[in-house]
């Protein structure tokens, strides 16, 4: 039987490119809305990573919450906060905190990558056999970790009320 299985290496490389390039464009694009679209594409890339990591429910959740709700909120805010002049007059690269930020970001990323790469064989290279399914998430959420669930509900109500109060127009 002819099998056309795409090896996971190719999809990993493609997803890495999509995610990282999307994140870079999101921060560097001139127009904020192009940045928001690139951010949405980057989120879809991360959802693809979740699918590769045998967490399909998380991938769907990532798409529906991040791209479906957070990006919509961001788009609304961008449209309500329009300014006449250009978006970025001069970024803070010349100031001390700007250049320190670039050094910090670069060195941190390289340091973490170096540590991880040097760990070598102590980190697993083969995916272990997994018999986790989607239906294992339910009992884990409600029976094993019920307190974070209730705290999350309270947090949701608090943030809902907070956003409502903040965005109310003063008369």
């Amino acid at each position, binding site marked *: *039987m*002819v099998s056309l299985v795409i090896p996971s290496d190719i999809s990993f490389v493609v997803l890495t490119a999509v995610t990282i390039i999307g994140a870079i464009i999101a921060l560097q694009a001139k*127009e904020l*809305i*192009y940045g928001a*679209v690139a951010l*949405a594409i980057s989120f879809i890339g991360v959802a693809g990573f979740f699918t590769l990591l045998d967490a*399909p*429910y998380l*991938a*769907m*959740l990532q*798409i*529906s919450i991040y*791209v*479906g*709700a957070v*990006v*919509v909120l961001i*788009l*609304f805010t961008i*449209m309500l906060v329009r300014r006449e002049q250009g978006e970025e007059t001069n970024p803070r690269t010349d100031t001390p905190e700007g250049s320190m930020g670039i050094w910090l970001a670069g060195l941190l990323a390289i340091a973490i990558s170096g540590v991880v790469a040097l760990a070598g064989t102590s980190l697993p290279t083969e995916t272990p056999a997994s018999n986790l*399914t*989607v*239906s294992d998430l339910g009992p884990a959420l409600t029976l094993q970790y019920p307190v974070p669930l209730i705290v999350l509900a309270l947090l949701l109500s608090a943030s809902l009320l907070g956003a409502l109060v903040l965005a109310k127009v003063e008369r």
Partner: protein
Amino acid sequence: MVVFPPTTPAELIALIIRIITSHTFITIVIFPGFIHLTLVVIFLTWYERKLLARIQLRIGPLYAGGPGGLLQPLADGVKLIFKEVMVPYKASKPLFMGIPLMLVVLSAVPFAVIPFGQHWVIANIDVGLVFVFAMTSLFPSMILIFAWASNSKYPFLGGVRSLFQQVVYEIPMWMSTLSVVLLAGSLNLVDIVNAQEKMWFIVPAFFSFAVFFIAIMAELERLPFDLPEAEPELVAGWYTESSGAIFMLIFMGLYMKLYLMSSLVTVLFLGGWWGPAFLPQPVWFIIKTLIVATFIIIPRGVYPRIRVDMLIKIGWTRLLIIALGNIFLTIILINSGLLASWGI
């Protein structure tokens, strides 16, 4: 003998024939894949015009050719392809051209998980229902971006209205499917249909069916939830500035979404492909889906447009409460054992 990679032309032909007749290729390209989707979407445009015409005591498309004007969508397509695509002044060209294509793609992708028969499903994933949810939740943001990219006030107003409406009605839509998931015990769409072998889920989850039906009419922006496309006010809503091939793509995307929502209703509530055995399973599925699509199209010729405050009130309060009530009712029904004779 099929050899990969092929070395002689005979082996190449054998490989091609083997691929074309494989089940995967048939499901992706022919049924329920590209060809079937395109044909059904084209048929639905004709069907809607004929149905609305009969409701409004006229005849509808008649002269384009074929019996009863069946080639009318073909004539429409050819006309739209040859029309000039006008991009508005200072509109953002990549977004303006790219998003209608994304709309069609996004309406077509959830069909990969919808089962048309016991083995007629392209991808039998364990989270099928949540996959459809994720894909439909991408629509409001794309419509908003397209409306913004049109750089004109009618589309922008229409896009904001459409975003509000779709975001509000997404919640009762997916809360009402929770009753179905409880009854079936799985998020997999094939399992949900298999659990309806003895009794369709419309019987124990009738209120959920009602809520879902109303919510998808609002999702599809059909009358009476026609506010984003209010013709006397907004010309054509968020796709005012689209013309030619762009409009054709958006049109196809909208009708594909109609077909998608109708087939969702069939899968979740009307027993999918189960029916007496004298017709094959996919035929039963398509018959049920077309009946649901008929009932979605009919209110367009009958009801007036709903007001925006009534829209929000119905979406946030009434439908959500009915859906939640039905979830509780389902839990009571399951635990009381009344549904045991039907295998739940």
